[in-house]
Each structure stands twice: as structure tokens, then as C-alpha cells.
């Protein structure tokens, strides 16, 4: 579906990105300045790289070796910018319909009523952009991109300028696009929370290079990538199925390949697939099965890997069944317990650490 291979230089900044993806949502993840936006601009055709190749749905948009360069306006990429970039002098309706007639009639799949309904923007149609809230603006920007019937949707940190409440709102609409339209998306972000909710695959970017590309759970579970996947918010991501709800206590049991997890605030029906992020800093390790403890998740496993960091903290990977969890401990604890690969151990996770913000609906 998407193939990207770029080498580019912009002043002192060097970009070398190479990845391929065939899932609906591919996330570009990395700190600011990692080159994520540049990659998206190359896919869109707003930047012409020194060398590279971009293929979207079998259509070669750029191939410097063969001198192929499709200009921006013919690429049919839907670009949702961080700041919306709505046309200030046009109404919402005019904004939405701007790109519609540039798409050849045979390729038009987006219908105004459907997109307006999907994004709940019907009440806004006759208004102008300046009077809209940040969340409304982003919904209109998404609708405008969609109505040009793009081959692929590029979203460059579409939540970055929104307050937390609006973020959740827009995430909900993007999930809708993913599940109802199944349009391929490249989603740029530096928030791991958004990736867990939206993406199936992620490309990890650092200092202008694509460091790793793979399934979200695979990338997030790698100890060697921990410095880049986030010190505070980072942690293993695992796929699970909703097993049961305890309505009296508001606790949900999730089943995964290796055990069960109890958490709070999960809004999904039994049998539905979800993705859970367990922050490494929320996981403790015990060599014996603890008793008389409030933590509801005690998972038996085996130490697989101990990080080699020098500082006061160290990351440990524990295998539970076929799934890995990451735990961040003080190096002192790791040494005191004598943690080493192969040792049986228990991973302890507080249920309240796993709330709605850690769960994505796949």
C-alpha cells in the first residue's frame, strides 16, 4: 500500500527514511525534529527530495532514479495539517467542497453527506473558520481532505494544537474513518497514547532516520529502542480480547496470549479486540508470588532481557507466555534481586494504572 524510501538534505538536516506498510494506519513516531513532517511532505509532494521513491497503492508518485515526479496537485493525497489551514475566506461548506472537482469523476468516492455525518459537522456548514473551535476546525480539515477522495490520508500531528478534551474527540473521529472508510492513513505523532489507539504499524524516527518499522507491539516491546520510544510514557503494548466486565466494581478482564489483565474504564464489548499499553514505570517485579497485596495483576513469567543502561534506572523485559512486558526498575533493585535472563519472576501491575488512556480499540 505504501512504500517510502527517501534521502534528502535540508541545510544541516539529513533525512534518511525507508519503510513499507500495508495496513490501514501507519504511525510515524519520534521526537520533534526527528523528520516526521519532512517525510509526510515528501509523500505529499510539497518537498522534492534529492533521491527517493514513493509508491502509494501501486502508483509511483516519486522515483528519482527513473525521473518520475508527480506534482502535488495530481497526487491525490489528503493532507490534514497540524494547524488545519482552512481557507479563511470561505465557508465550511466551500472549504469542504474545494478539492472535490479536481478529482476525476470516476475516482470520486467521498460523498458530502456521508463525510459531514461521519464528522458531525452539519451544523457548521454555513459558518466561517475563524469562529470555530480548535476541534471543529480539525474536523472540517479532515472532511476537506476526505472530500477530495484521496488515495491516502496524511495526518501531521492533527491533535497537537488541541486541549486534552478535544484530543479525545478527534481521536474518536479518526477511529471512525479507520473503521468505516478503511482509507490508508499515515499518522504523525510524538504521543504514544495516540499510536496505541490508532495505529497497527509504526515507524520510529530519530534524528532524521527511520530507526525501526514494525507492528506497534513489536516496536514498543524492544528494549534496545527504549531511549527513543519514550522514557515516561513508554512501555509494552499488547493485543488482548475483552473477556468479561465486572459491572459492580467497574473492572474489565482482558485476556492475552499468556494470561489475563484487570483494568478499569474499558469501553468495549466482551469478545472485542483491544490494545493495551502498560507503561514500564507502572510494572514491578517480584521473584516470589506476593500475597496480601492490592495489585490485581500478578503475572508469572521469566526474565528475558536486562537493559544495560548506566544511570540509576534500568529496563527489564519479562516474557509472559508469548508476550513481553517491560518494567523500569532502579538498577539497585535489579542488582539486589539478581535479575538475569532466564530467571522466573512475577510482573506486578496496578489495575488503576491501566485506564481508558492506555487502551486502544483495534
Amino acid at each position: 500500500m505504501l512504500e517510502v524510501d527517501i534521502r534528502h538534505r535540508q541545510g544541516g538536516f539529513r533525512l534518511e527514511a525507508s519503510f513499507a506498510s500495508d495496513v490501514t494506519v501507519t504511525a510515524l513516531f519520534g521526537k520533534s525534529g526527528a523528520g516526521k513532517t519532512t517525510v509526510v511532505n515528501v509523500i505529499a509532494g510539497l518537498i522534492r527530495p534529492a533521491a527517493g521513491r514513493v509508491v502509494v497503492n501501486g502508483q509511483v508518485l516519486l522515483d528519482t532514479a527513473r525521473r518520475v515526479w508527480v506534482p502535488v496537485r495530481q497526487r491525490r493525497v489528503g493532507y490534514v495539517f497540524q494547524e488545519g489551514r482552512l481557507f479563511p475566506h470561505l465557508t465550511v461548506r466551500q472549504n469542504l467542497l474545494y478539492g472535490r472537482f479536481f478529482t476525476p469523476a470516476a475516482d470520486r468516492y467521498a460523498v458530502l453527506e456521508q463525510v459531514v455525518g461521519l464528522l458531525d459537522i452539519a451544523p457548521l456548514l454555513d459558518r466561517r473558520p475563524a469562529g470555530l473551535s480548535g476541534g471543529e476546525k480539525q474536523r472540517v480539515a479532515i472532511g476537506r481532505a476526505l472530500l477530495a477522495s484521496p488515495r491516502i490520508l496524511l495526518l501531521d500531528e492533527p491533535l497537537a494544537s488541541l486541549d486534552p478534551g478535544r484530543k479525545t474527540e478527534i481521536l474518536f473521529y479518526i477511529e471512525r474513518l479507520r473503521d468505516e472508510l478503511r482509507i490508508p492513513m499515515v499518522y504523525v505523532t510524538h504521543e504514544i497514547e495516540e499510536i496505541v489507539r490508532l495505529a497497527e504499524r509504526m515507524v520510529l524516527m530519530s534524528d532524521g532516520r527511520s530507526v525501526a518499522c514494525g507492528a506497534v507491539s513489536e516496536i514498543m516491546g524492544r528494549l534496545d529502542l527504549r531511549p527513543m520510544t519514550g522514557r515516561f510514557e513508554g512501555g509494552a503494548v499488547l493485543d488482548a480480547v475483552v473477556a468479561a466486565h465486572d459491572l459492580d466494581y467497574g473492572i474489565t478482564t482482558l485476556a492475552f496470549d499468556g494470561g489475563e489483565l484487570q483494568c478499569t474504564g474499558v469501553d468495549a464489548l466482551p469478545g472485542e479486540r483491544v490494545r493495551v499499553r502498560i507503561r514500564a514505570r507502572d510494572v514491578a517485579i517480584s521473584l516470589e508470588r506476593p500475597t496480601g497485596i492490592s495489585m490485581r495483576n500478578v503475572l508469572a513469567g521469566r526474565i528475558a532481557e536486562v537493559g544495560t543502561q548506566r544511570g540509576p534506572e534500568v529496563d527489564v523485559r519479562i516474557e509472559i507466555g508469548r508476550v513481553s512486558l517491560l518494567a523500569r526498575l532502579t538498577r539497585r533493585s535489579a542488582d539486589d534481586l539478581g535479575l538475569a535472563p532466564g530467571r522466573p519472576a512475577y510482573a506486578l501491575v496496578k489495575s488503576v494504572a491501566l485506564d481508558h488512556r492506555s487502551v486502544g480499540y483495534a
Partner: protein
Amino acid sequence: MLMPDEWEAIRLSLRVSLWAVAASLPLAVAVAMLLARVRFPGKSLFDAVVHLPLVLPPVVVGYFLLLLLGRKGPLGAWLESTFGLVFAFRWTGAALAAAVMGFPLMVRAIRISIEAIDTRIESAAATLGANPAWVFASVTLPLMLPGIITGALLSFARSLGEFGATITFVSNIPGETRTLPIAIYSYTQVPGGDLQALRLSIIAVVLSLGALLVSEVMVRRATARVAGRDA
């Protein structure tokens, strides 16, 4: 209550000013785009030449126009033989002189409003499939509208008051090139013309004030539209 020759001066002034604005506007937009968006060698010099009428004595501009576009001037002779177009001692020449004098003011106002446009909005239009000409027509041009209105008004007001370049280039011919300021000047030069000079001066004040007020309203509307506020 106005005498026929007074009416004539007013009508002529309005016609000359409107034509001056209308004819120079497209060129002013092009030059403003060039100055605001394009980097090219000799840009500073080009910018200076565009601004020259603002700093030169108007008489000098009128004299150059006469040299260049007089019936025996190199450009004037060619225009007459090729297109039958004559500027010398015609009201069209007065309009040309007014347009040249107002041109820098127009370009300045438009250029400022182009520079205020976020070019990222234009690239958003490109990603939606618009070609450069349509991006210009549907995004850039509407967004520079406040500058176009301001520029047109400044040039119009400048044209209404144009004196030096006009009288040098096309002289003082009643009914053809005797615009309002030239008429006022003529009345002050004849005995007993004081009253008429005063009446025409008052009319000049009213016209200028009216133009200012109209443009104020238009600019306010255009600015609200460009800012994306609900009208």
C-alpha cells in the same frame, strides 16, 4: 448651481481617476506579487524604479512621459502608427499620468497584504488538487483583497489630486485635460475666479472624503472576510 465648465472638470476628473485605477490595477497586482514572492537579480533596483514616481517631482515624471509618449516620442510615434493610440494632449494621457503617479502607492498596499498571506494555505490548496492558476484565483487573490481595495483607493485619491505630471504631459485643455485641480488652478489665475476656485475646492474635499468613507467600509468587510469571521 454649478456652471457647465465646472461640471465638466468634475466629470473629467472622475473619468480620468477611474480609468487610471482600473488600467493600472492588474499590473500593480503582478508587480506586487513579483516583489512579495519572487527573488530575482536586480530586485532592489526594480523596487526603486517602481517607487520613483513617489519621490520624483511630478513635473519630471510628466516631462519624461512627454518625451517618451509625445507624438514625436519613440514610444508615442510607434503606438500611434501601430494602434492609433494617442496619449499626448488627450484625457487618456491625463489618466496615464495619474496612473503612473499612483502606481507606487497601489503596489505598496497590495504587496503588504500579499506578505501577510500564509503561503501554507496555498500549499493546502495544492494538496487538494488545485493548479497554481486556480490557487491564485481562489485563494491568493481573495486574501489580498483588503490590500487591493486600499491600493485602489490611494491611487484614486492620488489621481483626483494629480496636477504636476498631468499639466506637463497633456497641458490644460478645457474639456480634454483640464481636471479638477487644473481647473482650480486656472480659476485662481484669472481675475474674479476666486469664488469658482473655492467652490471647486469644496467639491474636491467632498469627493475625497466620500472615497475615503466608501473604502473604509469596503476594507472592513474584506478584512472580516479574509480573517474568516462570520459576516
